[in-house]
């Protein structure tokens, strides 16, 4: 299986006299067999990037590569895609329209039917297969949409906000499904606003802001790039830390303080000052959460 690679991807929207670079020289790789999380605020360029990857939107500059060569329409035909906005044919039964979409992707009707039924069964929708989509709850419509993307053993998955609107149990089922595909060696790229979810799931993370890649790597890489904070817990009051040179007190609460220490010498000064005042119960590094990193890189 192959990597999905984006090189220097740029999209300029021009309306009237003004032009806007929605995506500006974005490069990253969604590696084969890994879940890559695509994070960024509204208007960061996630959806535009994904639409260019899928060929739905013309590329102004740059290229999309799959398996080391420029992506073709035949490759894309075998990509599973979930667009930004949800919707299927509201007045057509679930099974019927999923089979229709599968057939458009070149899967024979009986094979498509069997596979769709299998997926619906796993997502607990087997008994709803003959219902019209509009009769389903939003969460269930979302599941149907996921089936539309993952049927036919896709070569890559590009999913725009696949988890929005799902309850935690449904998220877990969905993640299991996606893991099956990464196990096959498929690259999975998905965007999300839910940072805790991305942190828990992803092997790779791409943070986008203002149309540019702000950070790119494994969650551990990203965390280690940030300034490490330390928690200090004393027997007495910790207010003195504000006066120690080279130490930034982030938060002080009675005997406990959260500090940023700029170098080892500052750490030594902090500890000896603390020991002069009594017992040190705790002095430990606090790993930043992705949310912190996200705030830092997008600030």
């Amino acid at each position, binding site marked *: 299986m192959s990597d999905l690679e984006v090189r220097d991807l740029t999209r300029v929207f021009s309306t009237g006299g003004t032009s806007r670079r929605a995506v500006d020289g974005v490069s990253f790789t969604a590696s084969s067999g890994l879940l890559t999380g695509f994070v960024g605020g509204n208007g960061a360029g996630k959806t535009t990037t994904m*639409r*260019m990857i*899928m*060929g*739905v*939107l*013309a*590329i102004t500059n740059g290229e999309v590569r799959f398996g080391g060569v420029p992506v*073709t*329409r*035949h490759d*894309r*035909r*075998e*990509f599973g*895609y*979930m*667009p*930004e*906005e*949800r*919707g*299927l*044919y*509201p007045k*057509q039964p679930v099974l019927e329209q999923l089979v*229709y*979409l599968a*057939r*458009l*992707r*070149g*899967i*024979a009707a*009986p*094979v498509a039917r069997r596979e769709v039924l299998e997926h619906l069964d796993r997502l607990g929708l087997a008994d709803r297969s003959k219902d019209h989509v509009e009769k389903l709850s939003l969460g269930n419509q979302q599941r149907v949409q996921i089936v*539309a*993307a993952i049927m*036919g*053993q896709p070569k890559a998955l590009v999913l725009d906000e696949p988890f929005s609107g799902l309850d935690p149990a449904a998220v877990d089922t969905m993640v299991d499904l996606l893991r099956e595909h990464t196990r*096959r060696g498929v690259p999975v790229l998905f965007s999300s606003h839910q940072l805790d979810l991305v942190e828990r799931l992803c092997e790779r993370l791409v943070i986008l802001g203002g149309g540019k890649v702000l950070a790119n790597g494994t969650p551990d890489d990203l965390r280690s790039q940030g300034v490490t904070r330390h928690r200090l817990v004393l027997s007495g009051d910790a207010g003195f830390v504000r006066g120690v040179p080279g130490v930034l007190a982030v938060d002080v609460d009675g005997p406990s303080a959260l500090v940023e220490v700029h170098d080892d010498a500052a750490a030594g000064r902090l500890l000896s000052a603390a020991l002069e005042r009594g017992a040190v119960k705790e002095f430990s590094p606090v790993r930043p959460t992705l949310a912190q990193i996200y705030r830092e890189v997008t600030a």
Partner: protein
Amino acid sequence: MSRNGNRMSRNEAAGAGRRGDGASNAWMIVATREIVVRALNKGFLIGLAVTVAMIGGLIGFTAYLDGRTQSFDVAVVASDESASTALESAAAEAASDDQKIELSVVRVDSAAAAETALDEETADAWLSSAAAAGADGWTLSGWREPDGELTQLIETTVRDQVLAGHAVDAGTTMDALTAGSEVETERLDGNPVDPQIVFVAGFVLAFLFFMGTVGSGAMIAGSVIEEKQSRLVEIIATAVPLRQLLAGKIIGSSVIALGQNLLLAAVGLVGASFTDLSAILPAMTTTMLWFVVFFTVGFVAVAALYAVAGSLASRTEDLQYTTSPLMMLLMGVYVVTFSADGMLERVLSYIPPASIVSMPVRVLNGDALWWEPLVSLLVLVVTTLGALLLAERAYRGALMQTGGRVTWKTALAAERGTTLGA
């Protein structure tokens, strides 16, 4: 390895070597869906059933009026011999000549009894001659004004009877008197079809055109915006070329529109065969066939333009704006073609889409030379091809543009997605 096994079994089941092969017949899958969804749509079926019932009812009513035999009971005073004789020959005339009128003679005793019969409605009219009183003149009485056709029949019979009497008095015969007086009618335009019928046919064709184009046009526009609004089209576009999606939609809705018109035309023609129109059925059938051919070609263009109208919208609510220019055009064709005649009709019969209605009408009224429909059809085919090319470009340009209505201009100028073409 198991992955490969999986792939193999799917391909075997598909009966195709590679999955990419599916793209070549994607338009068929799309067209089939359009047809099935439409054919199962309750609103569509009910509308069609109502139209068929209306046509059937109209024809049935006409046939009933044409074919119905009116019967009249006409009273006569038994002693009034001239009136009795006149009524009997009138009854015989009615019976012999397929006059769609039946006359039975009711003999009563007196004038008073005749009046009572009229009052009690046991008789529809009462014929009396003044001959009994030794005078000239006849009276046909009714409680109200006697029926026109009955009056005409009795007038003719009475006139013949009186004339025959006068002829005998003058020593000659009726035949001698009326010899050489027959007037025959002849039309020199060589066309067996009544202009009145041509007018009605023009109206019917214009109506079929309007119904078929607007109804099925709205369907294709709706189906396009449904996919655009839900972004379903983005999923479809990655699977099949947009050109095939458009082709499938046009073909699907054309099949529906054509089927609907064939059904209505068949109901109309079969119905017409039960009415007085049966005499001109061959001419009407030829006209209908021309209409079906013209409509089939022209509808492809209309459907393509409606697909663009759908793609220009960003929500279903926008459709009424994006489809209104087309709606105006079709409405204009409807209004102008069914009332056009003379030079205007001749010109319209070459200008698409008006030619779809005007040329078949000219064929019906015998005005068109044999090659004229063929030339007009050629013009229509060329126009349709042009409209298809234009529509395909605009459709692809507008379909992926989200956020607000798109104009024809921006749609045609738009850069298309990298892989969405052929």
